[in-house]
C-alpha cells in the first residue's frame, strides 16, 4: 500500500514536471491562404517550414512547433490571426505576414505584445521598419524600394532612357517601388514627367494608355498579376511601342507565359527583384534542391515568398540556437542574438540588420530575353550587394524627404 502511494506520488510529480522539461518552442506563421494569393501564401509557409526542417526541428533538445494561420491580405485579418496565435496557441515567435499593409498592422500590434518576437515574412512596405519602428519587430529582408535598386541606373546608363512615365497601382507597395526606382534614376539625371496611379484590379486602362506622353523613352510599370497583363495588352492594342521597365512583381511567370501579343514590348525589359527563380549562384542551386526535395508538389523553384519566409524563420532558428533555446527574461537574449545575426542568404550575400532591424540585402537587375524556342525567360544582368534601407544615402537626408506617396518623390 505504502509502495503504491509512493509510486502514485512519483507519477504525480512526474506528470507535473514532465511537461516543463519537454516544453516546445512555438513559432506561429501567418500567410495568405485564401483568395487570389492562396498558392503564393502556401509557398511562404513552405519556406518557413523548410528552415525549421533544415535545423532538424529541434533546438538544444527543445522541439520546434510550427502553427500556421491564414489572413486574407487585409490588415484586420492579419491582426486577428496574430492575436489568435499569441493568446490561444501561446506562440513565442511570429513569422509573417505576406503583404505590405498587413506588415504595418503587425508592426503596430507588436508594440502591445512586448514579450513576443515578430519576424516579418515577405511584406515590403517601407514604413514597417523605417518610421515608427518597433523594438520587437524584425525584417530579414528588404522593402519595395530596396528591391528596385540597380534598375534606375541601369535604365539611364545602359538602356539610355532619358525620361520615363510611371504606371503603378495606387497603394503603399507600388509607392515604395517607385521611390526605389526614381531615387536612383533621378539622381542619375533621368526625368519622370508623368505618373499614373490606377486602382488595384482595374480593368480599363484606355485613359492611361492615351495619356502617356509621346516624348518619354520608356514606361515603368509597377503593376501585379492580372493588372499588368491587362495594361500591357491594352497598350499594345493601342499601338504603343515604348519599351517597358518592370517592378518586382510585374514580370513574373504569368506574364512571361501568357500568350499576349505584347511579347515584343517585354523583350529586353529590365526589372528589379531580390529573388530570381533560376539564378545560378551555388547557394541558390543548393536552396532550390533542398526545397524541391522537401516539397515535390511545390513550385519548380522557391518563389519570392518561400525565399523570404525562409530567411525569417532561418534567422529565428539560428538565433534560438545561439541562446540554447532560452526565451527567458522577455526574450532579451534571443533578440540580441537576432540583432547581431549574420548568415549567408540563398542568394549568396550576407544577411544582417541595420539599426531599425531591417535587412541589408542583395538585389538583382534582371532582363527578359527570348529563348530559342520563342518562349520568354529572365536572366540576371546585374547583382547589387549590400543594399540598405536608405539606399546608400545619408539616413538623415533620406528620412527628411518624407514618407512615400503619390507625389513623393518627384522629378518632372
Amino acid at each position, binding site marked *: 500500500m505504502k509502495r503504491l502511494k509512493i509510486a502514485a506520488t512519483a507519477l504525480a510529480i512526474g506528470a507535473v514536471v514532465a511537461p516543463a522539461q519537454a516544453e516546445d518552442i512555438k513559432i506561429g506563421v501567418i500567410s495568405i*491562404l*485564401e483568395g487570389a494569393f*492562396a498558392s503564393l501564401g*502556401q509557398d511562404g*509557409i513552405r519556406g518557413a517550414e523548410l528552415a525549421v526542417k533544415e535545423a532538424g526541428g529541434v533546438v538544444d533538445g527543445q522541439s520546434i512547433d510550427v502553427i*500556421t*494561420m*491564414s489572413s*486574407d*491580405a*487585409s*490588415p*484586420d*485579418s492579419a*491582426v*486577428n490571426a496574430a*492575436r*489568435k496565435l499569441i*493568446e*490561444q496557441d501561446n506562440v513565442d515567435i511570429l513569422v509573417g505576414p505576406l503583404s505590405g*499593409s498587413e506588415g*504595418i*498592422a503587425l508592426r*503596430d*500590434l507588436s508594440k502591445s505584445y512586448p514579450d513576443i518576437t515578430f519576424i516579418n515574412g515577405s511584406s515590403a512596405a517601407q514604413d514597417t521598419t523605417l518610421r*515608427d519602428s518597433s523594438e520587437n519587430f524584425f525584417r530579414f529582408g528588404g522593402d519595395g524600394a530596396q528591391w528596385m535598386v540597380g534598375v534606375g541606373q541601369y535604365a539611364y546608363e545602359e538602356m539610355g532612357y532619358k525620361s520615363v512615365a510611371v504606371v503603378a497601382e*495606387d*497603394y*503603399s507597395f507600388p509607392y515604395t517601388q517607385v521611390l526605389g526606382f526614381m531615387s536612383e534614376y533621378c539622381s542619375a539625371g533621368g526625368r519622370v514627367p508623368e505618373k499614373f496611379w490606377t*486602382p*488595384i484590379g482595374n480593368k480599363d486602362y484606355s485613359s492611361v494608355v492615351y495619356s502617356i506622353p509621346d516624348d518619354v523613352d520608356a514606361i515603368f510599370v509597377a503593376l501585379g498579376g492580372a493588372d499588368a497583363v491587362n495594361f500591357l495588352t491594352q497598350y499594345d492594342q493601342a499601338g504603343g511601342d515604348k519599351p517597358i521597365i518592370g517592378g518586382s512583381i510585374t514580370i513574373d511567370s504569368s506574364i512571361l507565359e501568357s500568350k499576349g501579343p505584347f511579347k515584343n514590348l517585354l523583350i529586353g525589359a529590365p526589372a528589379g527583384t531580390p529573388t530570381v527563380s533560376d539564378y545560378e549562384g551555388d547557394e541558390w542551386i543548393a536552396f532550390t534542391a533542398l526545397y524541391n526535395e522537401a516539397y515535390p508538389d511545390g513550385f519548380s523553384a522557391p518563389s519570392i515568398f518561400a525565399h523570404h519566409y525562409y530567411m525569417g524563420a532561418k534567422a529565428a532558428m539560428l538565433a534560438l540556437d545561439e541562446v540554447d533555446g532560452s526565451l527567458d527574461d522577455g526574450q532579451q537574449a534571443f533578440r540580441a542574438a537576432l540583432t547581431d545575426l549574420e548568415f549567408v542568404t540563398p542568394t549568396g550575400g550576407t544577411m544582417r540588420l541595420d539599426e531599425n532591424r531591417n535587412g541589408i540585402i542583395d538585389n538583382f537587375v534582371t532582363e527578359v530575353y527570348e529563348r530559342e524556342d520563342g518562349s520568354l525567360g529572365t536572366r540576371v544582368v546585374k547583382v547589387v550587394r549590400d543594399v540598405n534601407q536608405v539606399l546608400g544615402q545619408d539616413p538623415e537626408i533620406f528620412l527628411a524627404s518624407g514618407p512615400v*506617396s*503619390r507625389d513623393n518623390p518627384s522629378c518632372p
Partner: protein
Amino acid sequence: MKAGFLALPLIALPFVLNDFWLTQIATRALILGITALSLSFLATYLGVVSFAQITLAGIAGYTIAYFGPNTVGVGIKLPFWVSIPAALLFSVTAGALIGYIARRSRGIYAIMITLAIGVAFFYFTRQNYAVFNGWTGFSGITAPVVAGTSLRDPSTLYFLSLATAAIAVVLVSLFARAPLGLAIQAVRDAPSRVMALGIPVTTPVVAAFAFSGLIAGGGGILNVWYQERISSFSVGLGPIIDVLIIAVIGGLRHPLGAFLGAIVFVLLDTFAVDLIDRDRFNTLIGMVLLIIVMVAPNGLQQLAADAVAKLRAKEHQSGKSARIKTNT
C-alpha cells in the same frame, strides 16, 4: 426572470474566460452582433435587406479614427466626448440619407441600391487620401482612457460591448412597439394602405434607416476600438457579406438572433483552420453555414426557441400527468 437567466452568465464571463476568449471571441461576437442587429432590424420591421450597414458602421469608425489619436498623421484630434457623439451623428445622418435614397425600393431593388452604396463607399475610402487615408487607412487608434482605465482593456471593452448590445436590443424592442415602429411595420405590410390613410411613407422609412444607423454606428465605434485600426478593407464586400451571413444564420425574427449568429460565425472563423487542413477551412465554414440554413431556415434563434418550447411542453405534460396520478 428570463433576462436574468441570460444576463448572469454573460456578466460572469470575464471572471471565467481568459483574455483570448473574452476579447477575440466574446467581445468580437458582440460587436459583430450589434452591426448585424441593425441589419436584421431593417429586414424584420421594414422588410428591406440593407447591404449598407457596414458602411454606416464604417462611417462611425472612420469618424473616431479621424478625430482621435492615430499614427498616420491624418485628422484632427478631438476629445472623445466630442468624437463619439459626432460619430453617431454621422452614422445616423448617413442612415437617414440612405433611407431617403432607397425609400421607394423593396426586395431585390433595395438590395441593389444599398449594395451599390456600400461598394461605392468602399472604393471611395480606398482612393480618398485627405479624409480616409486611402488603401492604408488609419492605424494606431487607441480607445479613450476613462478614470485611469483604457476602454480597450479586455473586460472593460467586453462590458462596454455587452451594455451596448443590451441597449440596442431593448431599443429595437421598444422602437418596434412605439407608434413610429408600428407605422414602419404598416409600411412593410401594406404601403398603399398607409398612403391611403394619409400617412407619408417616406418619414417612417427614413426614420427606420436612421435608427439602424444609430445601432450600426455603435457597433462601428466599438469595432474600431477593438481592431485599433480601420481601412478600406474594414468596409469592403467581405465584411458586408459577413454581417449578412450572421443575420441570416442567427435568424431575423428576434433581436437576439443576430448575437447567436455572431457567436457561431466568430467561432467558425477562428477555429475552422485548426479543425481541418489549412487549404480547406473555408470549405468547412461554407458547409456549416449551408447546413444551418437548411436545418434552421428561420435561423438559430428560431431553432433554439422551438427546442425550448418543446421542452416546456414535455415538462408541462409530465407535470400534468404527475398531478393526475396524485389525484387518483
